[in-house]
Every structure is written in structure tokens, then in C-alpha cells.
């Protein structure tokens, strides 16, 4: 059936989950049902991690499952790995509330 390297869950998603280990320069075939997209990986991305399938601005929402999973804390170019270094969670941020209460 599918020969996908990465899976896009919903049409508004700006990331896909890679389902094989990706090397720098690989043309990653990302699928959304029958639709396919190709994005070139700019870095190594291990199985199960996310790849940006288009460029994401700093502060922009990161979308997976058609829902917000966090915000970009920097510019994320297409083909980049999206993880805790460039994605900030929005919920359960006791650290942010603590800083607010101190200042």
C-alpha cells in the first residue's frame, strides 16, 4: 500500500510524522490519505519525530491532527525537525505563571 516516509494527519497540519529514519537531503514523501507531498530534509530526523512540511514563522501555531500542539519559538524552515528545541508547549506552563507572579 503506501510507500510514505511521513504521515500528515489532517489537511491544515504544518508538520508530518516521519515513519523511517531520515537523512540530510532526503526527499521525504509525506502523505495525507491519497495526497502526497515531497519536502527535502535539512537535517537527520529519527523515526517518530516531526518534520516541518512548510515554513513556520516565529510565534505561529504548530498544527498536528488539525489542532494546535504548540508555538514556534523561532523561524522553522520546511524540512526541519520540529521538537522541544523549536516548539513551545502552551498548556501546563507553571514556569511562565511563576515568572509573571514574580515580575
Amino acid at each position: 500500500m503506501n510507500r510514505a516516509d511521513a504521515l500528515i494527519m489532517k489537511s491544515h497540519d504544518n508538520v508530518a510524522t516521519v515513519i523511517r529514519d531520515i537523512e540530510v537531503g532526503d526527499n521525504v514523501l509525506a502523505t495525507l490519505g491519497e495526497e502526497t507531498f515531497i519536502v527535502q530534509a535539512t537535517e537527520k530526523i529519527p523515526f517518530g519525530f516531526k518534520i516541518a512540511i512548510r515554513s513556520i514563522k516565529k510565534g505561529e501555531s504548530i498544527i498536528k491532527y488539525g489542532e494546535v500542539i504548540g508555538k514556534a519559538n523561532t523561524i522553522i524552515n520546511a524540512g526541519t525537525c520540529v521538537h522541544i528545541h523549536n516548539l513551545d508547549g502552551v498548556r501546563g506552563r507553571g514556569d511562565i505563571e511563576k515568572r509573571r507572579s514574580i515580575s
Partner: protein
Amino acid sequence: MTWYGYPRPDGSYGTRNYVLIYPTGIVANTIYHFVEGTQGVVIASTPHGPSTDQAMFHRVSTGLALNPNVASVIIDCTGLYWIQSPSSPETVADEIAKSGKRVELIGLGHDDTMTVIGKGIKLAREMVYEASKLRRMPVDDSQLTIGVKCGSSDATSGIAGNPVIGYVYDKLVKTGGTAMFGEPTEVIGAEHLLIKRAINKQVAEALLSVVRSNENRAKATGEDIRGQNPSLVNIKAGLSSIEEKSLGALYKSGSMPIQGVLKYAERPKSKGLYFIDNWAARTSIFLGYAAAGAQIVLFQLGGGAYHMDGPLYNPATVKIAPLIWCSANPKTRQFAGWNLDFSSASVIDGKERIEDAGERLYTYLLEVASGTMTRTETLKYVDTTELYAKTGPF
């Protein structure tokens, strides 16, 4: 569909046929050890240490004994447990006896511990023998109650593993069965989707209240929830935020309406799908489901961050409610091998649809309900369990 269960006097059906001895301690443990050859006795861990959440103690004490997989019950009255419990062993025994189940108390008199053990062994042997005379009968799916947890989650959990469980949940609920899910911390960021499925406004508000309370407890630490949840195991496997984890976790509940929000170890009031205000820890969650009446529980394992090739976690209570280990991760399938009860990695491989894997799991669920052993049931080994008390000892 049909499965084969042990008929109980209260009209329920067991997927197993155990004599329950509790609370845990030298008396119950020793009886379990000596009467073990019959496979008829199970040990259940129960709380040590005081908690102000005394109603929960009572729900667990009665709930475990009322579980349909339990044929009869021996209650050990020695030890500290009953001093900390809000209800006496006699009160608990009376409540269990109302179900028509045989319940015996040991250690009420002035016997020393070894004498209580000796009397308990004789009694347990007789009760196991009596239970063995029962025969399984054909029964339909509506007599089944299940619970679920996802753990060591990774990307395969949200993409394939949990949706396959969700298919099974939908199918069981549609045919009149009962299904429970919970882990409120792992609803944070996905609550707007969950509340759409509440049967009324009260249930929606109860759901939101449970999730808010968990998020507030997390925020009160003054730290980012990330690292605690998603845990380092999740993060090392590629999950980046609690929102991402929650959205993936939610799939395991399927798509049916949510009938209500229950406390830890509280029994569902009707058939259908229920949300439980429990704790995600594997040491605790299955005890709660068993006390709430689950005859089988499911663990949806990711496992992407580490190799899992040994026997999987085997909490004591899953002997009461057998645990089916599932995973959608191809690497976990390879590492765990025969230890894994069910793999839906074929969905990740692109070789099977979620619905087809779901049908396979549903069939397997009924096989286990009818007596096929889970892989962990082949082990005597058990891990410890702990109760979920929101108010701990100080």
C-alpha cells in the same frame, strides 16, 4: 458476538474465576503462595499508609471483591489496613455478600499470624475447589467492561495504536458493553474535542473541571509540565508537548458519547463509555479499573524510546482483570516479540487499515474474555500496585 464467561449470582459474568484474598500482607501473600498450584487465588495490593480520602479505600475494598472475575472472597482482618479503613471488614463483607458471592473473614479472633495463615490455606483450598466446579457459559458483548491506558507513548500511539483501541471501544459501546478511560492530565489541550461528546452540560462541566484541576496542580509546581508530561520517555521518542500527547491519547476513547465522569475505583452507573478521574501511573490505574468492575484491561504501548524485550510490567491486579499489551510501533513489535499480545504496527507499515486492525483486536479481546491467557498471565511474577489517593500521608 459471543464470549464465554463464568456466571455470577448477581447476573454478571467473569472472564476469570479467582478466589480473592486481601488486603495484601503476610497472611494473604502466604496463602497465595501455598494455594498457587491451582491458579485459583489472586493477590491484590491494597493501601499502606493513611489517607484522608477514606471513601476511596472503601470503593477499592468492595469493588475488587465485586469484580465479576472473582468467584469468592477471603478477607484478612489482621493488620493495620482495617484500622485505617473507614469501614470495618464485617461491613465490607456484608456489602459483598449482597451480590450473592461467598465471603469469609479470617483473623477476627485471637489467633497468632501463623494460625490465621494455616486456617486461611485450608479455607482457600476448599473455596478454589468449589469455584472450579463452575462452567463457562455463552454470553454477549454487553456483559463486558473494559479499561485502557496508553504508556511509553510515542508517535505511533496517536497515529495507529490509540485509534485501533478507539475502534474497539466504539464497537463494544455500540453493542451495549461498558468502557472506561481516564488519565485527565493527558486531556490538557484536547478538552475542546472531548466535551463535544458529553451527553449533557453537567457531564461536560465535570470533564472540564477534572482537567482544569489537574492542570492547576501541575502549574502550582512553578514548572513547565513538559518533562513530567510528556515524560522524558515520550520526548525521547519524538512527542513535543502535552497538547500533542493529549490529542493522540484521546483517540483511544473512540467517538461514542461520554455518559459521565467517575472517581477512581467508582463503578459505572449504566452501560456505555465513562471518563474516570484517575492517575495515569501504570502502578495505579489498573487497580482502579479492576475495582470499578473491568473484566479486561488494555495497555497501548508506544515504546519508541527504549528496547522492550523482556517480560512486560505485570501489576498484581491484572491477575483479576487480565491485561492485553498492544503496540503499534514496529520496533516494539520486534523487541517485545512474543511478550506483546497484539501489534497494530501493520498500520504504520501501510499494510493494514485501522478498522481491520481494530477488528482483529476485538476478536482477540473476546478470546481473552473466554479464557485464552494473556502473555503476562503466564507469569507468577507480579509488580506492586498503589492506590490513587489525592490526599497523601504527611
